[in-house]
């Protein structure tokens, strides 16, 4: 079958690779009908996460049709249209049964790597390096889905592929940021990043009753899209003093909840960016945390900061003093998607959550390398490139 493979730092190619097959009794094989780029893929492609092998298939956010079913699969049958959570979680360990699916004990087949990196091992992820299990990704014609009864969800009638696709990762990730960030009616919420996850976090905050939601980015086309489709207020950090604006809009308090949806390759105005980039290139820090710093610095006293952006290792100049002296709650997680996806599909069916606008570019899988180029360089108004294998 055809698949979009990582071939080395910043090198992608469509290759012929072996078809996946059922390996466990709880597996299904899915024919991928839509699969989409994600900002966190750029960390893998750019070599920031050094656990990739040449030939690894990328992609973790996808939808498709069930074509093979393991003997212990109960919920799905051949022909079902399913959206699949990007995280591979068993559904049975203590973490899964407590809704912390991305912390699953059993979903990662390479626990020795992440145990050493992070002190414990999270679940596995499709197409997300050998640190996260080495599972083949979704930028392919077919994909094996382990623990299918836990991670795959039938798409309701009336929800298009283009909408349901984002229930795989962007929508549940964004929802989790607002939910576990503690957004409640009357809150003012600031979201750093107007990509797909940031937009979904903003929408989730609105649906959870936030009084005001302010989305921050530097690309006008993304901010305009956010205003049009999500309905939040926006700020362009290259043209305004974000801190001053947030204080003005919150009666001098600062946002109650700050959600970071940017990750380890964050940009920022001023000398901070050059400082972080040089240190990252010299491998003196693995991640650029400027949006995290901003979120912590601008959050109101006693407020909550949720880190949705993906980070891999260590950061410099973490504002521990601001966090401690303001009494903040700082939390982060990879997405516990299985906990949110059924509810999100219902909201998509009711029209409360729209996502089609995020798919600014759609193309065949053969054009995957070009799709990632425009996605990475943010040209031609790209928010997400969707591949149709």
């Amino acid at each position: 079958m055809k698949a979009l493979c990582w071939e080395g730092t910043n090198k992608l190619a469509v290759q012929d690779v072996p078809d996946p097959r059922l390996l466990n009794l709880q597996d299904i094989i899915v024919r991928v009908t839509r699969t989409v780029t994600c900002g966190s893929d750029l960390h893998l492609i750019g070599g920031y996460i050094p656990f990739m092998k040449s030939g690894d298939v990328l992609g973790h956010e996808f939808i498709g049709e069930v074509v093979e079913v393991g003997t212990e699969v109960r919920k799905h049958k051949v022909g079902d249209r399913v959206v699949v959570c990007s995280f591979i979680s068993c559904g049975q360990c203590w973490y899964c049964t407590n809704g912390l699916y991305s912390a699953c004990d059993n979903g990662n087949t390479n626990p020795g790597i992440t145990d050493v990196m992070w002190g414990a091992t999270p679940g596995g992820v499709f197409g997300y390096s050998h640190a996260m299990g080495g599972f083949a990704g979704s930028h392919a014609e077919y994909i094996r889905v382990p623990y299918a009864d836990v991670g795959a969800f039938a798409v309701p009638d009336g929800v298009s592929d283009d909408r349901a696709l984002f229930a795989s990762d962007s929508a549940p990730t964004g929802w989790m940021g607002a939910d576990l960030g503690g957004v409640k009616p009357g809150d003012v919420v600031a979201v750093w990043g107007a990509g797909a996850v940031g937009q979904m976090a903003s929408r989730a905050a609105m649906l959870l009753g936030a009084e005001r939601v302010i989305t921050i980015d530097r690309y006008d086309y993304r901010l305009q899209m956010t205003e049009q489709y999500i309905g939040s207020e926006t700020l362009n950090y290259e043209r305004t003093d974000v801190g001053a604006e947030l204080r003005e809009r919150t009666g001098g308090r600062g946002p109650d909840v700050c959600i970071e949806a940017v990750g380890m390759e964050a940009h920022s105005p001023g000398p901070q960016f050059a400082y972080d980039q040089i240190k990252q290139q010299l491998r003196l820090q693995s991640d650029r945390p400027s949006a995290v710093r901003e979120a912590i610095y601008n959050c109101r006293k006693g407020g909550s900061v949720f880190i949705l952006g993906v980070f891999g290792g260590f950061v410099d100049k973490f504002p521990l003093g601001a966090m401690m002296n303001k009494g903040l709650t700082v939390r982060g997680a990879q997405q516990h998607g299985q906990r949110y996806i059924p509810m999100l599909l219902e909201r998509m069916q009711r029209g409360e959550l729209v996502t089609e606008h995020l798919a600014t570019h759609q193309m065949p899988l053969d054009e995957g390398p070009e799709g990632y180029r425009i996605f990475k360089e943010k040209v031609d108004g790209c928010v997400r490139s969707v591949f149709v294998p």
Partner: protein
Amino acid sequence: MNWITRGVTVAAVTAGGVVVRRVLTTRRRGHWPTDKQVGAVGAAAKDEPPRWYVVTVNMQLDEVMPAGQLPEPLAELGDAIEVQVRPAPGDKGTELAARLTDGEPSGVGGAVARLTGADPRQDVRSALRKAKQLLETGEVLSAHSPPTAKSTLLNKPLELAIDRSAGEGRL
């Protein structure tokens, strides 16, 4: 901590069979968690019994060891290990602990054993993880196969890390 440790023994006794024998006939002193001397360093530390490796299984104790039988593949390690179990606090399931009966490799020999995959600690970690998965999910999750990646000189270290991963880590 002592009463907890005794609790372990009681729990093991009620579970019966193999576990009772292993616990009561162990040639080494000390219970799990290890009752190390505070401040034991240097030569004194060498006399300490091997460390316990522990997983928490999200099941009740009698489900983890029905009729006192050790779960597979832990049971396959036979007399090479001793095993203890106890209920986890906070309704988190059952803590399943194992350690090597004949000590652990150390020094250069230990490092070589780890690299070559001949370190018995790797067998214990791997068996504990697999036992937990079998109990909780009914099967051991397979890594992706057939592989799509190519083997190159550059990724040899990563391949070694992947090969050893099931038996390494902080467990």
